[in-house]
């Protein structure tokens, strides 16, 4: 999961328009018009928080750069379908033992060949605790991860990885996971050239990759100002550059970037600032886009709060959920710019189902909500001394308005004390969540790392999972997740994931609110702008006009 700097949104009306570009996949009106390939595209970015090493980057600013400079075994197309990059084939018979064969003749931009070791060494480096890589948990499925990642461990390799020859390596997982190959397009799984391990800090300043772009020169990363990328002529694959370079201009806030966009000083802006949501379609006309992506917004309610545990807690959670008028809030506050949630995942994903049994718990129904609340009162009376609060971080994103709206919905429909609780900083909220000292609910935004239902379920709701803020634990749910992962095909797996979701819809460890939508725009100098499944523009496809 990567934390997004700002919240993003969508309009229900726009979904129809969206699905045109999303489902069309660039085969119809979007993405095929002729443009010049000699333009350098200036896009908005944010300062990468860490050295540009794939396993130490866990936020969108650095992620966008890495995705262009490196190419993994797979990449994802606009709809999130995996497509081979470095991989010739990824084969398995039992969803636990994988044999990965690489394409021939691939090189890094320093001339080194991309070999099996490039992957294996990079993954081992990422997993080993002694390297303290932020994305190390991505390797958790691989056998030997626990030994390598344990606190204070000096083990440098995972036993599940084995190099067979230059172009082949095998991976053994600690349990069968049918959706594991889907993850391989995520940045943590990118290969690294040998030079990266000699001096990782220096490498992170001037990374050498194998992707469609490369650094324009040593020092192309001018911190907090811009990062200049030029096409890598050696690259051959699905993401070949259609322009003469991409320059990420780093902005401190989106409002400023928007001023640059409407005066044609910036070519592509991926997030329209909240203050301009109401007029960006007027300002930009044809040059604006609303594109749903794999992200959602929820409110997690911890089980260690006495009012919210047990049978009474479950009824109260359902009552709260039914007291929230999602249609009205997405309409009024987001100007019709978000889509009310029907499940715990996101509509752009393969296997998404809006009509799961239990999804009626996410529909506005104040009468039923009152009834459920009254039933809960009969079991255990609501402890008024600990009224519900909904926490949000006030430093990034714009959460206050919608939290207040949700608070008012609950207050008016159930007649109980509820309040919004701003945290000054993101880290303050996170620390309380980690240390189990939350005194109320906490908003949680989730953006998928890779296009899979499991990515929205396992890391957040499985017993003991890293982002399980609610401290939810349901053996049936866990079992269904395990079954889903062990399924022999992704389709069967998705079915099991959706069965598991039925448990969540019943228990509501978190209350899903809405799905995220990217709202962006581009200048009159560029063409062929399309947003991917993760809300990031497909930079390589943008052309000049």
């Amino acid at each position, binding site marked *: 999961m*990567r934390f997004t700097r700002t919240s993003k949104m969508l309009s229900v009306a726009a979904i129809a328009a969206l699905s045109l570009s999303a489902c069309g996949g660039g085969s119809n009106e979007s993405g095929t018009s002729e443009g010049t390939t000699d333009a350098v595209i200036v896009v908005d970015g944010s300062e990468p928080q860490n050295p540009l090493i794939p396993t130490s980057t866990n936020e969108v600013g650095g992620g966008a750069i890495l995705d262009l400079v490196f190419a993994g075994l797979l990449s994802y197309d606009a709809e999130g379908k995996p497509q081979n990059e470095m991989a010739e084939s990824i084969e398995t018979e039992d969803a636990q033992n994988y044999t990965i064969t690489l394409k021939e003749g691939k090189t890094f931009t320093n001339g080194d060949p991309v070999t099996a070791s490039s992957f294996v060494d990079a993954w081992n480096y990422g997993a080993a605790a002694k390297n303290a890589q932020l994305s190390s948990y991505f390797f958790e499925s691989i056998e030997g991860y626990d030994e390598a990642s344990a606190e204070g461990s000096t083990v440098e390799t995972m036993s599940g990885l084995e190099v067979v020859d230059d172009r082949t390596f095998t991976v053994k997982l600690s349990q069968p996971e049918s959706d594991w190959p889907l993850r391989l397009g995520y940045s943590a799984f990118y290969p690294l050239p040998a030079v990266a391990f000699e001096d990782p800090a220096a490498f992170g300043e001037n990374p050498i990759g194998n992707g469609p772009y490369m650094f324009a020169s040593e020092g192309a990363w001018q911190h907090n100002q*811009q990062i200049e990328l030029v096409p890598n002529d050696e690259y051959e694959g699905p993401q070949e550059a259609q322009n003469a370079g991409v320059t990420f201009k780093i902005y401190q806030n989106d409002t400023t970037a928007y001023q640059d966009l409407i005066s044609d000083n910036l070519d592509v802006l991926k997030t329209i600032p909240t203050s301009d949501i109401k007029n960006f379609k007027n300002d930009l006309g044809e040059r604006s886009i609303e594109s749903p992506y794999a992200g959602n917004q929820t409110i997690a309610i911890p089980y260690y709060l006495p009012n919210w545990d047990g049978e009474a807690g479950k009824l109260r959670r359902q009552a709260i959920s039914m007291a929230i008028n999602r249609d009205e809030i997405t309409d009024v506050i987001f100007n019709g710019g978000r889509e009310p949630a029907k499940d715990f995942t996101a509509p752009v994903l393969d296997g998404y189902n809006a009509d799961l049994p239990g999804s009626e718990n996410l529909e506005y129904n104040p009468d039923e909500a009152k009834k459920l609340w009254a039933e809960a009162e009969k079991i255990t009376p609501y402890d008024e001394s600990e009224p519900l609060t909904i926490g949000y971080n006030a430093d*990034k994103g714009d959460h206050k308005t919608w939290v207040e709206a949700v608070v008012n919905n609950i207050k008016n429909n159930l007649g109980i004390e509820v309040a919004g609780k701003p945290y000054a900083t993101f880290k*303050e909220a996170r620390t309380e969540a980690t240390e189990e000292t939350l005194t109320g609910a906490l908003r949680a935004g989730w953006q998928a790392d890779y296009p899979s239902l499991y990515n929205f379920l396992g890391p957040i709701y499985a017993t003991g999972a890293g982002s399980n803020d609610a401290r939810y634990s349901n053996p049936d749910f866990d079992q269904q997740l395990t079954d889903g992962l062990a399924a022999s095909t992704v389709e069967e797996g998705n079915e099991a994931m959706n069965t598991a979701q039925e448990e969540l819809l019943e228990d509501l460890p978190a209350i899903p609110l809405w799905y995220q939508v990217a709202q962006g725009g581009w200048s009159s100098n560029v063409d062929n702008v399309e947003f991917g499944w993760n809300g990031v523009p497909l930079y390589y496809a943008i052309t000049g006009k």
Partner: protein
Amino acid sequence: MVWYIVRRFLQLIPVFLGATLLVYFLVFSLPGDATAAICGERGCTPGVVAGLREQYNLDQPFWIQYLLYLKGVLTFDLGTNFSGRPIATIIAEVFPTTAKLAVMALVIEAFFGIVFGLVAGLRKGKIFDSSVLVLSLIVIAVPIFVLGFLMQFLIGVKLQWTNPTVSGDATFTELLLPAVVLGLVSFAYVLRLTRTSIIENVNADYVRTATAKGLSRRRVVVVHVLRNSLIPVVTFLGADLGALMGGAIVTEGIFNVNGVGNTLYRAVLNGDGPMVVSIVTFLILIFCLANLLVDLLYAWLDPRIRYA
């Protein structure tokens, strides 16, 4: 005089120690674990958290952390921020831009403030005086981010006289607009201070004497009235330089200037202790130096003031 300056420099040492200790303690007391900011929403594994804590000395108690930092400073090693970059490099990157911006703003506000204030003071109650007073009142009353966005929109987006944002090079022409915005509020204060001071001094005995002596009006105004009226203004400008260096967060944000204010803001949000302390200490030193300069200017402006 030399001894006075040396003594003032020696006074910087306790100021430095006290300031670093206080700021370090404040950052240390901020709620929330610093590694939580580094790890993001999904968090890190315990192994990674332990590694990060060790790397940034977060596993040590407050005194050890502070002494380690102090030791670094005394050996000219400010350490790295939470992104792993040397703090000295970051300060060297952002400081020149902010210094340029602050000096430009200072020059603009001082020049226009003093000239307008002088004219208004000499023509007290006339139409120029009244309109300038109303104008300065409006500038003081309107929040700076409104002024900033308004001028950015009008001049940068609509008229396109300049880019709405400042590029990495931060050239003189690009910085002009933000400098004007930054200087506007202080301009109003300088104007009002100068005006009041002039009005006071115009009727002073020594001015009457100077006029009676047969000096030209020009000489009376510039050498006698203005010079004596500048002391409060200089005091204000000296303090303002410090404020402009560190307090330009809003303006720097609006015009996307990669400066000290923005860097400090980000560091505070991330609980990046060493980074915050380094920048704040740096600002305090600048503030002290600006104050010293102001004190020395007093002596020049008013010969009655002597330092020994």
